[in-house]
């Protein structure tokens, strides 16, 4: 046993980068909502990108550590303490056995991630450690964490151990030590508003001119009925020039579909595999983390982006991530 859940928070689940290869059997991809935050969290503790993390939503858990561990917290800005002393996000933290890590409410953003060196050790189900809440499998017993649950850490790699040893030495007798270097994170949601780019969808041209205009000119609000499956938005009703019956087909993460009530839904990690509503657009992969951090009541402005620019931006971010990884290794003297 590595940690024990004292209080579980609102919706705390084990997730990794997702379950691929089974959509043909109707199995959702699942996985973390904010991949960028998780990539950084995993890098900070020396993990692989695919290692499992805990995803916390709106109100985080309290966790008792039964083992010395190297952790990192990224994503939304939550109030975090270890033994009632503040801890900063976006950096490697060494924590001593017996300490209590407590997450409060999210001050900004919606989801935070707790990565541990080695990742969380839950069984691989169909190639992934992600929780499928709807079908109740994967992750920790196919469900959200509950009080009393005990999670185990997988054995950390050599770089993780090297990093943990460094921080442990600096900790001395203290219950924890946080690295004095960090990866700065951008907040894209400012004053409860965010700009999200959109690639035109297959049925974009089938919407009325007014609807296409208001889609990009007006503001949409995130409804309280938003979850890991989809973000339901409220705003100007989007209308088709004529009603259309589409043949159901695969839908991807970021798909913005418009049901007959005209209120768009952005499909997210736990989306179903097949859908049949008209697709006005797609949120590109690069901007999905922005959506993942929006909370009910906050606002979205959509801005158009071409497929070319969306893919270019993704490739650039990948290069940046590789540079950050290298930077971490150089900073701590691994290379």
């Amino acid at each position, binding site marked *: 046993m590595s940690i024990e859940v004292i209080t579980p928070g609102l919706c705390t689940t084990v997730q990794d980068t997702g379950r691929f290869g089974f959509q043909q059997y109707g199995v959702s991809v699942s996985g973390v909502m904010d991949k960028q935050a998780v990539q950084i969290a995993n890098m900070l503790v020396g993990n692989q990108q695919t290692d499992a993390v805990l995803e916390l939503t709106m109100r985080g858990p309290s966790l008792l550590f039964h083992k010395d561990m190297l952790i990192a917290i990224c994503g939304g800005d939550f109030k975090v303490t270890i033994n009632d002393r503040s801890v900063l996000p976006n950096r490697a933290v060494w924590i001593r056995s017996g300490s209590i890590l407590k997450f409060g409410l999210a001050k900004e953003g919606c989801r935070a991630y707790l990565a541990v060196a080695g990742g969380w050790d839950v069984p691989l189900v169909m190639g992934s450690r992600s929780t499928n809440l709807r079908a109740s499998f994967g992750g920790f017993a196919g469900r959200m964490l509950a009080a009393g649950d005990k999670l185990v850490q997988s054995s950390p790699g050599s770089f993780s151990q090297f990093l943990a040893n460094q921080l442990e030495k600096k900790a001395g007798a203290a219950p924890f030590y946080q690295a004095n270097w960090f990866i700065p994170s951008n907040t894209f949601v400012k004053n409860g508003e965010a700009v999200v780019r959109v690639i035109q969808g297959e049925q974009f041209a089938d919407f009325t001119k007014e609807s296409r205009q208001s889609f990009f000119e007006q503001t949409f609000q995130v409804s309280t009925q938003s979850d890991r499956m989809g973000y339901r938005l409220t705003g100007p009703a989007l209308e088709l020039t004529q009603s259309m019956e589409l043949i159901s087909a695969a839908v991807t993460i970021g798909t913005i579909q418009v049901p007959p009530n005209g209120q768009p839904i952005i499909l997210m990690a736990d989306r179903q595999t097949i859908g049949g509503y008209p697709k006005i657009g797609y949120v590109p992969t*690069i901007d999905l983390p922005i959506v993942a951090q929006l909370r009910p009541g906050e606002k979205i402005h959509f801005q158009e982006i071409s497929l070319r620019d969306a893919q270019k931006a993704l490739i650039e971010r990948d290069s940046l991530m590789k540079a950050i990884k290298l930077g971490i290794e150089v900073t701590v003297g691994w290379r």
Partner: protein
Amino acid sequence: MWQCRYSKMEGKTLPRYEFSPLGDSGVMVKLGEVIDQLTHEQVILFCEYLQEHPFPGMIESVPGFTTVTVYYDPITLFDPLDDILPYDRAVAILEQMSQQISNTHSKEYRLVEIPVCYGGNFGPDLEVVAKQNGLSIEEVISIHSTTEYLVYMIGFAPGFPYLGGMDERLATPRRSSPRLSIPMGSVGIGGLQTGIYSIESPGGWQIIGRTPLRLFQAGESSPSLLCAGDKVRFRPISEREYENGEKVY
């Protein structure tokens, strides 16, 4: 509990493939305009080809009624030495593949028999379906269980089959207020469709029976009892047979 029978499925004419982006990590390949057997066979053949010949950067493919969606990783498909968009590269690969699938290529299909206990507690809406259509309960069971259905695709929920071929005499509108929870294995009718709830979920279909078979089991090799391209036939069983029924496959 269920049987397999094999027959030949043959591609007749080479369809025209239409490509369109599905976000920045997917290509939707359209193989036809309407839901029919011929288009479906082409979808299955193409999926099978992709399964056997995955290209570097390909993540997975998902069959639809008239489409095959191919997910890919734009970063793997990007080559810093040229300026080809990952999407364009994926389309070029798929276009080439479409030439490889010969129109004489054929596929065998399975016939899967699904035992169903009709009516009673397992099928609370059986009477509704009979009344709506001016049929006796026996007639509904007989019509429903003598038809051979085609599995067009699996989706909506894990292991949930989209079945084609229901007799129009059984068409019944969905319930005006959906049930909050329908047990796993429930067999229902919604409009012109019939299907099986593969996991417990809310739903509005008229429930006429239940199968003891599990349609979905999380596992590595084949988590779903049914696959796109299978044929299905329902076999009426008694409540006693249901209780003794094989729950696994």
